[in-house]
C-alpha cells in the first residue's frame, strides 16, 4: 500500500480546486432541488389527503412510483427520455384536439430551439434538478402527509366552524403545526438529498463525486481522491445536521414561549 497525497498540492492545487468546484455544484444542486422538492412534496402530500378522488388518484401513484424506483433510473429517464415524453404529449394534445396541430408543431419547434440552447452544457444540470426534486418530493410528500395526519381532525373541524375556509384552515392552523412536527424528518431528507446528489454524476453533472472521479482519471490516485471527497461529504453532512438541529431547537415551542415571556416581562417593567 502506498499513498500519494501530493496530488492535492501539485499543479498549483489544480486537483484540490476541482474538488472545491465540485463541492460548489453539489451545494447548488442540493439547495435548488430541496426548494422544488419541498413545494412538490407539500402539494402531493396534501393532495394525497384531498377529498377529491381525482386529486388522490393523481397523488398516490406519483408518490408510490417515484419512491419505489431507483434514482439513477429516474435521472436517466429525465436526461435521455424526457424530451421524447414532452414531444409525445404535445403530439397527443395536437392530435386529440386539445390544441390545434399547427400550435403543437410550433411549440415543439420552439422547444427544440430551447433544448439546443440548453444542450450547450446546462441540460444535465436541469435534468439533475428535476430528477432529484421529483425523487425527494415523493419522500417529503409522505412526511407531510404523516405530519398533517398527526394533527387531530378536530382542529380542522373547529377551524372550519369558526368560519375559516379549508385553505385558510390549512394555511393558518394545520400546516404551521404540521411543519413543526416534520422538521426532524425533513432534515433527514435534506441530508439524503445532499448525499443522493452524488448520483447525478451518472448523467454528467460535475459535482463532487464526478470531480473525484475526474481527479482519479487524471492521476490514477483513486483511493486518495475518494478519501478526500468522502471527508468533504462527512463534514458537509455534519454541518447541515448541526445547523438544522440548532435551528430546530432554537425555534421549538418551549424556546419561543420563553422568549415571548421574557419580552412580556420586559414590557411590564418598562410600563412600570
Amino acid at each position, binding site marked *: 500500500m502506498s499513498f500519494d497525497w501530493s496530488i492535492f498540492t501539485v499543479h498549483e492545487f489544480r486537483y484540490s480546486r476541482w474538488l472545491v468546484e465540485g463541492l460548489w455544484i453539489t451545494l447548488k444542486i442540493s439547495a435548488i432541488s430541496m426548494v422544488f422538492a419541498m413545494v412538490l412534496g407539500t402539494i402531493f402530500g396534501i393532495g394525497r389527503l384531498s377529498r377529491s378522488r381525482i386529486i388522490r388518484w393523481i397523488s398516490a401513484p406519483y408518490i408510490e412510483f417515484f*419512491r419505489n424506483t431507483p434514482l439513477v433510473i429516474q435521472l436517466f429517464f429525465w436526461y435521455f427520455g424526457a424530451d421524447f415524453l414532452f414531444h409525445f404529449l404535445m*403530439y397527443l394534445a395536437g392530435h386529440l384536439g386539445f390544441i390545434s396541430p399547427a400550435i403543437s408543431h410550433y411549440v415543439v419547434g420552439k422547444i427544440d430551439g430551447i433544448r439546443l440552447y440548453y444542450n450547450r452544457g446546462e441540460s444535465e444540470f436541469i435534468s439533475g434538478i428535476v430528477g432529484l426534486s421529483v425523487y425527494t418530493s415523493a419522500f417529503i410528500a409522505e412526511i407531510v402527509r404523516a405530519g398533517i395526519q398527526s394533527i387531530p381532525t378536530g382542529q380542522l373541524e373547529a377551524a372550519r366552524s369558526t368560519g375559516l375556509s379549508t385553505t385558510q384552515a390549512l394555511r393558518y392552523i394545520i400546516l404551521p403545526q404540521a411543519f413543526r412536527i416534520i422538521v426532524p424528518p425533513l432534515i433527514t431528507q435534506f441530508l439524503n438529498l445532499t448525499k443522493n446528489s452524488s448520483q447525478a454524476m451518472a448523467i454528467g453533472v460535475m459535482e463532487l*463525486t464526478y470531480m473525484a472521479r475526474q481527479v482519479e482519471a487524471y492521476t490514477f490516485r483513486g*483511493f486518495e481522491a475518494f478519501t478526500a471527497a468522502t471527508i468533504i461529504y462527512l463534514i458537509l453532512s455534519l454541518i447541515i445536521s448541526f445547523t438544522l438541529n440548532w435551528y430546530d431547537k432554537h425555534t421549538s415551542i418551549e424556546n419561543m414561549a420563553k422568549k415571548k415571556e421574557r419580552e412580556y416581562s420586559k414590557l411590564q417593567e418598562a410600563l412600570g
Partner: protein
Amino acid sequence: MQWHWDVIPRNFKYFMLGQYPDGPMGGLLLTMVMSVLVILMCFVLGIVFGLMRYSKNKYWRFPAIGYIEFIRGTPVLMVIFWCYFMLPKLIPVLQGRTRFEWTSALVALVAFYGAQMAEVVRAGLESIGRGQTEAALSSGLTYVQVIRYIIMPQGLKNMIPAIVGTFISVIKDTSLVYIIGVAEFTRTVFQVNNRVLNAPMELFLFAAVVYFVPCYMLSKLSIRLEKRLAAGVKVEI
C-alpha cells in the same frame, strides 16, 4: 413521433439473465441475487454492530458509533468507489486481477447497509425497554442469555417492517453498482440504450417499472406487517 417498444422483447433475455448461459450472470437475475446476498450479509453485520451500539460498555459502543455515523454521513456511491479503489490495495490477491467489480460492489453494499441495519437493530432492541434486561439479569441469566432468549426474539419481531424497508432500499441501490461496471439490470439497460440510441424513454420506463413492481409489493407488505404486528402487541397487553 415514433415508438420503439420492440427493443424490449428483442433484448429481453439480455435484460433478464445477461450473458448467463454463455458468460457471466447478469441482468435482473444478478440484481436479485445481489440484493438477497446483501440483505442476508448486512443483517448479520447489523446484528453485530447493533448489539455493540446497544451495549453499555464504551469500548464496544464507540467503535460501533464511529462506523455507523461514518457510513451514514457518506453517499452510497462514495462507499462503492471506496471499496472499488481500496480492496485491491488491501487484498493483494485482487491486485493483478481485472474483474473484482462484483466483489467490491458486494462489500460496499454490505458495509453501507450494515450500518443502516445496525440502526434498525438498535431501534428494535431499544423498543423492548431496559427494564426487561435488568429483570432478566437479576433472575440469574447471563448477558448473552438475556439477549439471546429475552431481548432478541421480541426485538426481531419489531424490526421486521424496518428490515423490509431496508430491503427495498437495497434493491433500489443495487442499481448504483453499474457505475463500476457490474453487469446488473441497470447496466444492461444502459448498454442497450447506448446501442440503439432511439428508444431512451421506452427503455428507462421499462427499467423503472421492473424495479417498481418488487419494491411496491415489498412496501405494501411492510405496511401490512406493521399493522399486523401492532395488533399482535395489543392483544398481548
